[in-house]
């Protein structure tokens, strides 16, 4: 038996089976992810306002980007995304804690209630805010009938855009956080309380570090999703703020300058990839998906 085991492993090739099972996914990614991205990078090197891919590469688009004010929309996108992450962390952590540790049947209810929203197009949900906040909208109407207050439209400013982003991406923060808080063993918390730790100490020294994978995944997801957001700024923000994603979109639609749009996309991809890799390099995802750390 003992000398059969390694032989069997070798001939069956569990390594090969693993690679084989991964191959459909790998092919999909090569065709649908890597190749298109290379296409974008290459297109960014083509002369402006052309649609042909087979020309001599040039850096002209990048020069245009740095000469004009595109960095402003990049800063807006990064800034809005960062603010969204911070607000959502503060809003979702208590809720996630309650869902993981306190509520029983309530947890399932909240999960359904929030998860359902994931499947309704964000446009519809943002449109609800428009109806609520527009002049003579639901909020304005209620204030007028109840308090006699007359207010103008609450739309088209930066706080509303942030609200819209927090609203749309809340599930992406909440669910990873619930998974994360679930990983904190009750015994450890109780032991800490028994040893005389204060609530704040337990939070700082036990809850937060042990739920860190959830915090990281949630923050990353929200950051990346909101950095690429188009609809929020357009539907709720009017023309107030131009994000990098809508800059890129208009290069492809109105301006019909695909090479410039591609160069912008490339820059944007590089920026987000750096952020994601810096964050992902710091922790092990397996822990969050249910693998015991001891294994």
């Amino acid at each position, binding site marked *: 038996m003992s000398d059969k085991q390694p032989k069997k492993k070798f001939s069956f090739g569990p390594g090969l089976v693993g690679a084989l099972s991964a191959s459909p*996914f790998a092919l999909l990614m090569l065709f649908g992810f890597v190749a298109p991205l290379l296409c974008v990078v290459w297109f960014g090197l083509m002369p402006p306002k052309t649609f042909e891919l087979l020309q001599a590469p040039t850096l002209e688009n990048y020069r245009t980007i740095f000469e004009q004010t595109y960095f402003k929309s990049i800063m807006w996108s990064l800034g809005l995304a960062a603010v969204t992450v911070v607000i959502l962390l503060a809003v979702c952590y208590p809720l996630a804690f309650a869902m993981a540790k306190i509520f029983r049947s309530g947890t399932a209810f909240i999960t359904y209630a929030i998860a359902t929203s994931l499947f309704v197009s964000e446009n519809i949900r943002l449109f609800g805010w428009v109806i609520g906040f527009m002049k003579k909208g639901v909020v304005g109407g209620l204030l007028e009938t109840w308090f006699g207050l007359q207010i103008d439209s609450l739309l088209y400013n930066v706080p509303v855009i942030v609200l819209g982003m927090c609203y749309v991406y809340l599930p992406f923060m909440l669910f990873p956080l619930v998974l994360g808080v679930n990983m904190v063993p009750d015994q450890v918390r109780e032991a800490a309380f028994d040893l005389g730790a204060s609530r704040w100490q337990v939070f700082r020294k036990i809850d937060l570090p042990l739920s860190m994978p959830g915090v990281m995944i949630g923050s990353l997801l929200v950051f990346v999703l909101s950095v690429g957001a188009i609809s929020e700024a357009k539907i709720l923000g009017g023309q107030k703020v131009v994000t990098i994603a809508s800059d890129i979109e208009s290069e492809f639609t109105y301006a019909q300058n695909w090479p410039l749009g591609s160069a912008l996309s490339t820059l944007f991809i590089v920026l987000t990839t750096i952020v994601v890799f810096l964050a992902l390099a710091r922790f092990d995802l397996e822990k969050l998906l249910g693998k015991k750390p001891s294994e």
Partner: protein
Amino acid sequence: MIVSRTQKAGFSLYAGLVLLVFYFPVFCIIVASLSKRRFFSFPYPQEQITFKWYEDALTSPQVHDFVSVSLRIGVVTALASVTIGFFSALAYARYRWKGRKTFQRLVLLPLFFPQSVLGLALLMWFNFLDVTTSWWTAAIAHTVWIAPITTLIISIQAYGLDESLEEAARDMGATRWQILRKITIPLLLPGMISATCFAVLLSWGNFALSLFTTGADSALPEWLYARMTSGYQPMVPAVGVLNVLFAIILVLVLFGIVKWSTRKSRRATAAAGGH
């Protein structure tokens, strides 16, 4: 965990508040969809409540077209991404192989990637390949984004897979195919079902990818976006409400299935462990 009553009440109050704010826009859309006026203003008198827009929405051939495009994309996406996700979940969570760690990182990349840019990249790629974009190129785009999600969902189940069951079957002489069919697939079924529901629903609501990859076909979220940014129609909120209802029903049905199959597989595992 032991919590005091006031603590629990506090947390419940907070959760209720979050849900209230969260559902405020849905409430607004419902209010708007029932108003008779062409241009919405609030509040409106009771006599002006009408279900006319719902009738319009349900009978409009235009809306039917968009729904059918969205459904086609959703079904193809779900089939493709759950099949691919099943195998990649095994590679992700179950088998020990050389490239596993790298694979686990790479699976996440499309998720941590702005969708609008991915949509544009695919548009250029299809253009380069001389493929005319239509609903099925959109299905490819959705699959690229959703296959990693189905992989993760099925992986969670695959981590809980009792390896000794597979080993026992192998020791008794079952082939790899038999093990896959009789043990691995039934045990992973709850994960696969919830992955299917995620795939359909995420594809149904997706806008950023569809915007660039549907070409002449148009999915429902695109039409809604166009109507919202230019040319408001009172039918839009009605379609929105119907959309929300559809999602709620689908979520309830599918969660019911998941609950049922989890219980079933737990019983199966217990029975198999008992022998």
